[in-house]
């Protein structure tokens, strides 16, 4: 594998990892607060549809982004009401919302545009265009580092950089602020937080809202950044891969970055069977590479490489008095 090919694969990795990273951080906030969320997929899907539709109607990608975040937060609010206020089963609520999103997106897009659940193709300001980082052209001549900066890091849409920035922000919020401490405590031992006089309900709702926000970014990125419009079921299971990445990352923000980059890299590598054959001297079937993220997650879950311990109060609705 020559350097140029590697750069192309890394470039692809960054694009493919971004929706996974955003969804993974979304799940991280929710699960750290004790709310399991397998509805990441559905939230991304509805955000994709809403952002694609709003961008097409308004001609502005930023209005599309807002609409995507709004739609995703709405689903998150329903999940919150079902699982926090009414103490329903969080897994069932998540599955139900995935089904709702899968059907509702196609239904709404179809009634708005009549293009079979697709939103019209976006162009110009209705879509996130690549941003050239400063000095990309100037540095390109520098050997090794230059092409990496110019070809891999530069030239992505704004949401890619937002996703990368979200990692240190998440780390700082979770581990360096009072809010973060309480959020983590709510996921481990909600009684202690309640005893200290802090509202468990409000903290959990806040966490679920942040989940909605991040999933909204992920969905909007897919429909208006990676693609020029929404297509039915376009998330194609990325919400579930993000959940696998979350377990792989042991519910930690920096690990989440590495896990999603690894999964993104595996996906990008699967696009180039010729490179695999040349580098390893044997043809690895593409489906095997596609399955690798899940296999890695099972290995981590089984405790072979370190142990993945989920937040202790995860999945349990909080009851103040019995």
């Amino acid at each position: 594998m020559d350097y140029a090919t590697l750069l192309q694969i890394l470039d692809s990795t960054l694009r493919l990892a971004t929706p996974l990273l955003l969804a993974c951080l979304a799940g991280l906030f929710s699960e750290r607060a004790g709310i399991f969320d397998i509805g990441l997929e559905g939230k991304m899907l509805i955000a994709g549809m809403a952002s694609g539709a709003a961008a097409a109607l308004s001609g502005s990608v930023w209005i599309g982004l807002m609409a995507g975040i709004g739609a995703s937060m709405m689903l998150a609010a329903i999940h919150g009401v079902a699982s926090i206020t009414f103490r329903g089963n969080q897994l069932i609520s998540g599955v139900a919302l995935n089904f709702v999103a899968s059907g509702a997106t196609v239904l709404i897009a179809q009634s708005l545009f009549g293009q079979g659940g697709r939103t019209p193709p976006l162009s110009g300001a209705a879509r996130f265009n690549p941003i050239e980082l400063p000095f990309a052209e100037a540095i390109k001549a520098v050997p090794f580092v230059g092409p990496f900066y110019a070809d891999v890091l530069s030239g992505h849409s704004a949401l890619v950089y937002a996703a990368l920035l979200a990692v240190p922000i998440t780390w700082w919020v979770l581990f360096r602020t009072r809010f973060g401490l309480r959020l983590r405590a709510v996921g481990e031992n909600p009684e202690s937080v309640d005893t200290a006089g802090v509202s468990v309900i409000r903290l959990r709702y806040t966490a679920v809202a942040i989940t909605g926000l991040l999933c909204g970014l992920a969905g909007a990125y897919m429909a208006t950044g990676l693609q020029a419009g929404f297509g039915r079921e376009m998330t194609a299971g990325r919400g579930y891969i993000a959940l696998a990445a979350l377990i792989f990352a042991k519910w930690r923000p920096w690990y989440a970055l590495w896990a999603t980059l690894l999964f993104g890299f595996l996906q990008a590598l699967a696009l180039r069977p010729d490179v695999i054959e040349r580098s390893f001297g044997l043809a690895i079937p593409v489906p095997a590479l596609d399955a690798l993220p899940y296999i890695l997650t099972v290995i981590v879950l089984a405790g072979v490489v370190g142990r993945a311990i989920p937040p202790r109060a995860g999945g349990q609705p909080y009851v103040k008095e019995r």
Partner: protein
Amino acid sequence: MTLMNKFLGAAAALALCSGAALADPALIYDLGGKFDKSFNEAAYGGAKKWADEAGGSYKELEMQSEAQREQALRRLAESGANPIVMTGFAFGDVLNTVAPDYPNTKFAIIDMVVDQPNVRSVVFTEEQGSYLVGMMAAQASKTGTVGFIGGMDIPLIRKFACGYVQGVKAVNPDAKVIQNMVGTTPTAWSDTVKGSELAKAQISQGADVIYHAAGGSGIGVLQTAADEGILGIGVDRNQNHLHPGKVLTSMLKRVDNAVYDAFKAGEAIETGIHVMDLKVDGVGYALDDNNAALVSDEMKAAVDAAADKIKAGEITVHDYMSDNTCPVE
């Protein structure tokens, strides 16, 4: 999951029961959805054409999950619909078990052969259409490298790929054809993002014309081709209008004609295998205002000459599905 499917099935059944119970023809779309800009939408076009011309009405149903197939077929048959046309190879096994139970109902299945006395099996010679667009791709390519992106990795899609490669090599024996499949599960028909990334990967390997047979994922392929300034080739329906001037041509598969014929014949539909090839305009390539500037006169002359030779039997395009191998890579 199964509970959900039952609900969906029940909902579909309810929707069907409420329809009129006369001998209207019926059309079932496969999982890609009615408006997939491709295969199923072409079927819809044929049904609509028939309805407009004959003034008749027809029933239609979109599959939402694998589990609905058998129930949907039985319900339609019991409601008296005749003939029942279904799009997609995936109905094959189900139809094989359902058809004998309704000997008085005629069925037509597109893209699959089902050996039952009351079934018409419509098959297309996709390899011939793909051969023609392959020739055009090779002529339009400046780098000598062209690409193919298939949807789900099934023999039918390999048939497209094989015909395409043969066409490319007929024009330029040294040309390189990069082939990729989006996936091995049904999500491969809707993963536009992966379609896009595959197109980008092929472009980085030098491809400057990319042909897709990937349903909804292909929308991503054509989008990326247009964004990156290379040419895409559409499939099934005329997709030239999606990106005018950026889509070289489209391989036409006249599913609309197949549905139209079946509806027009009504209950008197002939059963058995019905081949839609170049001779009966079952397949072909698209030429309209959107790609007129891309297709030179000599390109058109070469392709039309090859089409005539295929019709006359002077050129035989190998069919991947006949022996599950392709003579060229």
